[in-house]
């Protein structure tokens, strides 16, 4: 603390944060109403006042690696009570968005993901890939069977193509996995690199601001802490402390659990295909199918609720591209997923494949751009909360 801090405001940083939904940040007059109002800010060095000040001074180094910005759940109590309309909740959201692009390599990709102008370029990538794969599946079936071996190629119950309409008859599940498995490895790698820097920065910042007593991070202990944090996240314990828009936690919970449900479904199907040689689609009576359907419906309802809440809160909360991008994605994934199934059952191959095509593109969006989009908060927030717990954030 006694060490002198060299102040070097970064005007570009201020512009960037303002552009990411923090346009009100310069309105702060440091009264600290936000820190008092925040139901989850700790007593020692509470947020978001210090972040507001640092942001208005353009002190990037104090913010990007600051774990506190991730402890905020943007419930909006501070923004509603702010006497100057500085909306600290939105500024912190913008800072998180900035931090995500800062840690996710390559940065150029991060920039594109958060730039509405680049949306179609980013969409074109999976669109072209999946179009090619569809053509190969539908018109080069025997050729493919030759390469992969007949039985394996189809991934069906009996080793033959599924009779009637099936997603795998449009784009082979082989192809889908050939895309998504490497993509998953890529995503994990990007996160791994990002997190390494993130944790190091977060620790440095905590030491500098006197938020922790721990000198070094013990990896094993850190991971053990994750065990106590995950149930808290599952229960949305922080979220439910909000006064201003508590109902948001329900919607968020629905979306989170849908994704978990769909993750389980995907994993089971993956095991089924590669180890039990069971192809898709599953029977409607299969419990896995039930889980998939329940999750899909919950995803849509949760997404719609979130959109509604954002529209209702136009005055108090800024909704920027990054927010609509993610919500759009959630709804598209849920919507096209359900529609694919319904049109399949309804017997329209054209509709079914069209929806599936869009579904795959949107899932690609979600996956490939995960480390760069707002969705990355699932990782950063979890890590930051774990760190706060581990480091005994005072």
């Amino acid at each position, binding site marked *: 603390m006694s*060490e002198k*801090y060299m102040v070097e405001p970064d*005007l570009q940083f201020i512009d960037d944060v303002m552009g990411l939904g923090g346009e009100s940040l*310069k*309105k702060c007059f*440091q009264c600290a109403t936000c820190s008092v109002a925040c139901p989850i800010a700790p007593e020692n060095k509470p947020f978001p006042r210090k972040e507001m000040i640092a942001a208005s*001074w353009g002190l990037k180094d104090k913010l990007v690696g600051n774990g506190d910005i991730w402890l905020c759940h943007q419930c909006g109590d501070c923004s509603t009570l702010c006497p100057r309309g500085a909306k600290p909740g939105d500024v912190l959201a913008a800072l998180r968005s900035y931090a995500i692009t800062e840690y996710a390599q390559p940065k150029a990709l991060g920039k594109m993901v958060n730039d509405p102008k680049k949306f179609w370029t980013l969409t074109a990538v999976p669109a072209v890939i999946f179009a090619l794969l569809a053509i190969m599946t539908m018109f080069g079936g025997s050729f493919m069977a030759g390469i992969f071996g007949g039985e394996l190629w189809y991934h069906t119950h009996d080793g033959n193509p599924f009779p009637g309409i099936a997603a795998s008859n449009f784009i082979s599940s082989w192809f889908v996995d050939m895309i998504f498995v490497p993509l998953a490895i890529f995503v994990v790698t990007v996160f791994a690199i990002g997190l390494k820097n993130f944790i190091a920065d977060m620790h440095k910042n905590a030491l500098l601001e006197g938020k922790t007593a721990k000198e070094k991070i013990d990896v094993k202990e850190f991971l053990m802490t994750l065990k106590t944090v995950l149930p808290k996240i599952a229960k949305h314990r922080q979220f439910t402390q909000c006064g201003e828009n508590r109902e948001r936690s329900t919607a968020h919970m629905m979306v989170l659990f849908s994704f978990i449900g769909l993750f389980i479904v995907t994993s089971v199907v993956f095991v089924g295909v590669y180890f039990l040689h069971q192809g898709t689609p599953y029977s409607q009576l299969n419990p896995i199918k039930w889980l998939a359907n329940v999750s899909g419906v919950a995803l849509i309802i949760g997404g719609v609720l979130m959109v509604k809440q954002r529209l209702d809160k136009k005055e108090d909360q800024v909704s920027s591209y990054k927010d609509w991008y993610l919500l759009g994605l959630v709804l598209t994934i849920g919507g096209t997923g359900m529609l694919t199934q319904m049109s399949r059952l309804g017997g329209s191959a054209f509709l079914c494949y069209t929806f599936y095509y869009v579904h795959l593109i949107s899932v690609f969006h979600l996956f490939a751009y995960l480390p760069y989009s707002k969705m990355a908060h699932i990782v950063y927030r979890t890590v930051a909360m774990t760190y706060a717990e581990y480091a005994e954030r005072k």
Partner: protein
Amino acid sequence: MDKKYCTYICTGCGIGEALNIEKVAEAAKEKGYDCKIHSCLCSEEGVEFLKKDVAEGINALSIAACSRRVNFDIFRFDGCVVDRVSLREGVAWSRSRVDFPAPTEEQKDDEYFIDNIQHLAEDYVRMGVARLEKITVPVPYKLENFNRNILVIGGGVTGLTAAVEAADAGYNVTVVEKEEELGGYAAKMRKQIPMGDYSKGLVDPVVGKLIEKAESNSKITIKKGTVVARIAGQPGEFVVTFKKPGEKIEFDVPMAVPEDQRYDEKGNPLDVDQIRVIYDKINEGRADVLSIDPNGEPFAGVVLAAGWRPAEIDAEKYAYLGVGNKDVITNHEFEQLAAKGKIVRPSDGKPAKNVVFIQSPGMEEGDADFEYAGSVTSMVALKQAKYVRDDYADGKAYVIYQHMRTPGLMEDFYKEIQQDRGIFLTKGAVTEVADNGGTLAVSAEGTLLGNDVTIKADLVVLATGMVPATKDNPVVNLAYRQGPGFRDIGIFDGYADSNFICFPYETQRTGVYSAGAVRRSMTIEESTEDARGAALKAIQAIESANRGTAVHPRSGDMTFPDFFFQRCTQCKRCTEECPFGALDDDAKGTPKPNPTRCRRCGTCMGACPERIIGFADYNIDSIGSMIKSIWVPSDFDYDEPPLRILGLVCENDALPALDMAALHRNSIHPYVRIVPVRCLGSVNVIWIKDALSQGMDGVFMLGCKHGDDYQCHFVKGSELMDVRTYKMGETLMSLGLEEERVEQFEVAIDDYDKVSDMINGFVEKIESLGPNPFKGF
């Protein structure tokens, strides 16, 4: 004046219920005058009733009804003297019939039953009649050489606005400016803070248009390169001598004897005659205040808008702030730099892109700002920060403050400036400005950033304040015996002011009104508004002088102090004590009154040991007679005679507080007789001595707070009385009386909830002291 007296007792508003009205009327008739009773004197019918009597020749009316503070417009009869006996607030509402019940049927005829409240009411009507006997209808003082010209000192924004406003109201105005150019500081700035709409950003200085307006106005005469040598005379007939700055002329104003020359080698204060010798010596070669310049120009009122100068920075004291380094400058120097063009470093002429504005010196000064800094300094820092941003797209301006003062709507300016992404504001204490070989490094602690910080700077700007012109120089140069400036009462830091809140524009000299930065540091917008107010005050003073009435705070009062010079001992007490310098004594020491300078507070009357000063309706005799008409019972009357306590109450704040207390039915002990006075400064100790020698048991004075937060309408009244009370104590002791029998209390106008306890506490104390041993002699 041949007086025909009558007392009118009103029985409305609870008076009739509380008192035996018949017996009150008997007391009023004791001197053989008539007394009439009415159920509601303030009603239309009641007023008609009074008017009929006035038409039939009654010209001295004692109206025993409500407080003099209400219905004053109703009970006004031209050519009559009117006294208001407060039976409602003073008796019925403020003395408790629960604690002091009226006599029962059996007690009615009991000679030894003491009805204290009845006694009080009877005393009050006697006092009313006694006062009427001693007062006359005032005749206003008329000036011989009356004129209506207004003198404005200072040709800056304030002075020019005042001139234009006064000229528009039809008055001839002369503006005197010591510089060769009009416009003052405002003409030398790059931009100014917007006026009214703060979202407009910085605007071009408005002063240019104002100069054109003033110069083209036929009612305005402008004298550039000129100062006031002296202002002699009094409001309505000032005689002003002008001169070139620095010139020495016969009619230069005489100076007062400095404080340090008023004592001998042993530190004992010199007497008035010795001081006069020094006075004559230091003013040798200058015409006396009483001699009038035959070539002087006539004026009636003065607006003092002499403005300010930038405060200086003590290089030694603030060495740690880098004072002395070429790139550490004051906000004043920065403004000059900015007016010249893009902001560059004075040391090497390179662009100054990183500028730190330091608002407070920090270190030993704690959270204090630089001297004479205030809200304007904060506003200027915000404005100048914007200059940096206007000049350089990548410029950064930092403001480190202890106080960011943007009162009222000025907050909008702060909000506006704050939006600039290159302007950084933080509270903090600067610890050092170091030279890092070319660039400067500003270190600060206790900032909002949570750390001790260092900021790299190309240029550092220190926020010096605005020193009022009157700090260095009287400027007005009044040819008054008390001295050429406003008396320094030690709490205004050189500002030309007489009261922080209550009386804006008012100085301690009637007819001279200050406006703008000479009064307190102000922005151009504030100065403009201030100038209008001061111009109106000057007009009000002129017109009041013309009518022969007081202007402030006793607006409309037609009385003025009258001196019975044959008995004057030339002690100069009145000249010394007058808070407004209204009296100029001549070589012998006889005071020369200047009635239009006077505010009618009566301080001279309170000061005069010979008791030769009085007003038509307020004098030593009128109050003295009221006190003497109080019946003081002794052992001859009762075995245990009730006490009598006199309260001399300031009518500006204490009396309203008492009336409010009465309205709340907060009761006061009926031993207490209240006599309102114009100001405690007007209380002559003879009244206290008389009261005690006639057997009254105690005397208290109720006046305004004094000291740094004084509330006295006449600046010094309650403080002077405090000194007199203190001196009185010694006299009492020599008479064998306890000095505790005389006490002074401070009360504010809103202390209605405390004032009763204050008085009742005093009564208890007197009760414990026992009756006055002189009773009955």
